[in-house]
């Protein structure tokens, strides 16, 4: 019996959506990058709130 891994089954639910690369996953928890994103997200939310005031 061969030890060759089986081919991945195509046409399944999990086959189609994009999955993050290792770099993307690293950046999601990189403290420096995320500190910067924290500021960016805050600014985006403040802009949204300013636009929502009537």
């Amino acid at each position, binding site marked *: 019996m061969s030890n060759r891994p089986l081919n991945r089954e195509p046409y399944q*639910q*999990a086959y*189609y*959506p*994009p*999955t*993050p690369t290792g770099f993307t996953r690293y*950046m*999601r*928890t*990189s*403290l420096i*990058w*995320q*500190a910067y*994103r*924290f500021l960016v*997200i*805050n600014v*985006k*939310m*403040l*802009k*949204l*709130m300013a*636009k*929502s005031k*009537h």
Partner: protein
Amino acid sequence: MARIVILGAGIAGHTAARHLHKMIGRQHEIVVVSPNRKWNWIPSNIWVGVGQMKEEQVTFDLAEIYGKTSIDFRQAKALSIHPQGDAGMAKPYVTVEHTVAAEAGRQEKISYDFLINATGPKLNFGATEGLGPEHGHTVSVCTASHAVEANHKLQTIIDAMKKGERRTIVIGTGHGMCTCQGAAFEYIYNVDHVLREAGVRDRARLVWISNEYELGDFGMGGVHIKRGGYITNGKTFAESLMVERGIEWITRAHVKKVEAGKIHYETLDGTFHELAFDFSMLIPPFAGVGLKAYDKAGEDITAQLFAPNGFMKVDADYTARPYAEWSAKDWPRTYQNPTFKNLFAIGIAFAPPHMISKPMQSANGTPINPTAPRTGMPSASMAIAVAHSIRDMLNGADQPTHHASMAEMGAACVASTGANFFSGSAASMTVYPVVPDFEKYPEYGRDTNLTFGEVGLAGHWMKYALHHLFIYQARMKAGWSLLPD
């Protein structure tokens, strides 16, 4: 001196009370009626539901906070509204029934000059047989005590998996007409996170089930965001998150019945299915709390004030139209009742003119579509607008002066996908406007510069910071009014 009565002390009711107290608390009387003594920061219940927070960290004693102000708090349940008074009382009034043990069952009439209905939802577990923690087989994170019980059961499952057993966990919506998919979305990722931390993720089959047509609908018809040189539907990112965490999903599903260990559901194609589970958290559908209304002669006018689902009619356009003819202008702006001008409804308590997601029915005629979300930031915005309008009407304005249409406001949502200061994450999302406006934004109904989403640790920091900020603000501590609502 006028009296403003607020029914309900959730996010909408308490926000209105805080702002009215700040603006006119010295000149006028503010009465808050709520059956619950404790205020609950509901967005953090998901952390209670996985054992990352205690109930005490997401609740506080409302009576104690109001006791430090001039706000008059009555721990009672509203029963009926009498907007014209009656033969015995000339002024409009509400009938309430006290819920404090010492006075339980005692009814009282409270007259008002202005009434704000912010009663929130009735958690309608009864709509699906076998749903819910009290009479069913599923748990809930809709209240802090529900979340405590959910965590207790989750830990039992985790203990079994640590002994080598395999378990199926199903999380999502418990009916075809549910809203609040976001809470279930956060819960499934937090469960995934704690299973990984416990080293048992490989022994769990994690399944998402919801009434959304596609993942990422959230009752808002989904969103389109700019990413990687494309404008992409949120479905892509929602599916990506599921695949990344090894979560299966079932959409377009109406849960018909839950038995011990088995969910029966129907899908939009009209077929019926069963799904075995060991642990399940399913959000119930919402309904109005069942307030009645009577005219001066004592005739029942509930149908005049409320929609059939129990939510109060306000200044929306309730004319029934097909989806293609829905307009942003259908949505209410002032939340004033069209008949009784001193009556307002905010938060979940107001009746939306229609859904935001396109209505769908299964081949058997079962409606399967998310209903419109109106919690969190939109609730607070409505509360502030109504508080300002009432202040101005007390000062002589003949109509509401402030507006907060969901078709003209945005919403920010930070959905936790794992709580840990270094390894946690959350999906930070903004959407503008909440209700698509295809006249202003013909292609997607929304401003793609203000509608965005991303996943990362920064989102977790944001969610954690907001937890403390909003509880500080709700406790009405020094400088609360300087903080954003």
